[in-house]
């Protein structure tokens, strides 16, 4: 059973969003995503300052087998990419909700985050997808 923290919001493409205290949002891939992808060996995170739109492919994670796009759940400006992933891509597998975060965005509106799935909804979504 996949781990789905209740304090985060989720997308159908298996990203999570954490609301930070300064109003920024942290983005990563879910436990379900990392488990489905297998051992991750490379991550390409967006450059700081890049403007991203919700649903836009803006990061890439690569497992031994394949490359997968990561879509920004929110529109806004990228304020940080996780530099630690360059040397430790395995953090994506080991701590998908912690040290394996991908990038942080200063969102241009609060509405998009509110429209994302709750943990309960994402859990249901995974259950339906697996059927």
């Amino acid at each position: 059973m996949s781990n789905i923290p209740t304090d985060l919001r989720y997308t159908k493409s298996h990203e999570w969003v954490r609301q930070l205290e300064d109003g920024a949002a942290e983005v990563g891939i879910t436990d379900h995503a990392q488990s489905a992808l297998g051992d991750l060996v490379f991550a390409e995170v967006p450059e700081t300052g890049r403007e991203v739109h919700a649903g836009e492919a803006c990061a890439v994670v690569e497992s031994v087998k394949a490359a997968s796009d990561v879509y920004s759940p929110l529109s806004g400006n990228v304020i940080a990419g996780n530099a630690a992933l360059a040397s430790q891509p395995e953090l994506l597998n080991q701590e998908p909700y912690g040290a394996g975060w991908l990038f942080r965005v200063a969102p241009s509106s609060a509405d998009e985050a509110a429209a994302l799935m709750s943990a309960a909804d994402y859990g249901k979504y995974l259950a339906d997808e697996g059927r």
Partner: protein
Amino acid sequence: MGLKTPLYDSHLVHGAKIVDFGGWEMPLHYGSQIEEHHAVRRDAGMFDVSHMCVIDLSGERVREFLQVLLANDVARLKVAGKALYSCMLLPGGGVIDDLIVYLTSPTSFRMVVNAGTREKDLAWIRRQAKDYAVSVRERRDLAMIAIQGPNARQKTASLLAPAERESALGLPPFCGAAVDSWFIARTGYTGEDGFEVMLPVEDAARTWSALHAAGVRPAGLGARDTLRLEAGMNLYGNDMDEDHHPLESGLGWTVAFEPGSRDFIGRAALEAARRTAGREFVGLLLEERGVLRSHQKVCVPGATGDSSAGEVTSGTFSPTLNRSIALARIPRTEAAIVQVEIRGKLYPASIVQPPFVRHGKALIKI
């Protein structure tokens, strides 16, 4: 429903993630592909390769037949049990399949061909065999387990009775022998020492469990691919196929042009190809972080025109080197560095001579 090997249930017991592989339901990994890879480089791992096709060939004229069928020359097999790697070619020089053939008696050979090419291989072999009155027998009654790694032979031998153990451990590299109801060969697809064991289907699950109990770690197709690529070994369908001949697939060493009188299928086409510059088949080491993948474009400095770009035929992340490596078919070049296009951007990669890794050690400078 896909085809299942006799070890399918064993894979489920070990928590395999099952994927479709050429119509077969095979284990991709049992949790971590990278840990399985390291287990083979450092200790011992086992692969279910029962999906591969074992064919026994026999007849008075079988040697003569194989000297026509195969690009490598079975005359090189002088003692029973000795193995030979070869391509089987179309008249135009394209590769129908790559295979291993073992001499099993003066009038019989055993061949192991790829799973995905089973039907076309058998059809081709049977058609060619008619003129030589050679019997072609597919051995669906056999399962095959590859046990690979520095400790693989010892751990496998621990399952055998003392006399059998001695004959198994006495096998020289690239040789096989019948040991009781098993055929044990000191061959593999990982760049490590080890055995490939062909055994009756009904013994397969019990043997797999015994090997596991002896400390051999189950490894899936994912690790098999990263191991073979590190070892610089070609994969049929990626690195060679019916549209590419062996000389542009890094397999020139497997074509026996001597003696000139041996008229194997594809010979005339290869003789002609040998006289043209053609493309070369190289290893690549990505200089930066990222992952090389098959079909990525390779730009060679100075090359112009339609055929100026090369292509990655197999690429992966190398767990042993912690870098990305690839095999590629490129225009001939004196350059040491080429550029590979990854998601629209060019990244430098150096040309290196495979294998990248052998017997647990890096063979290229990082």
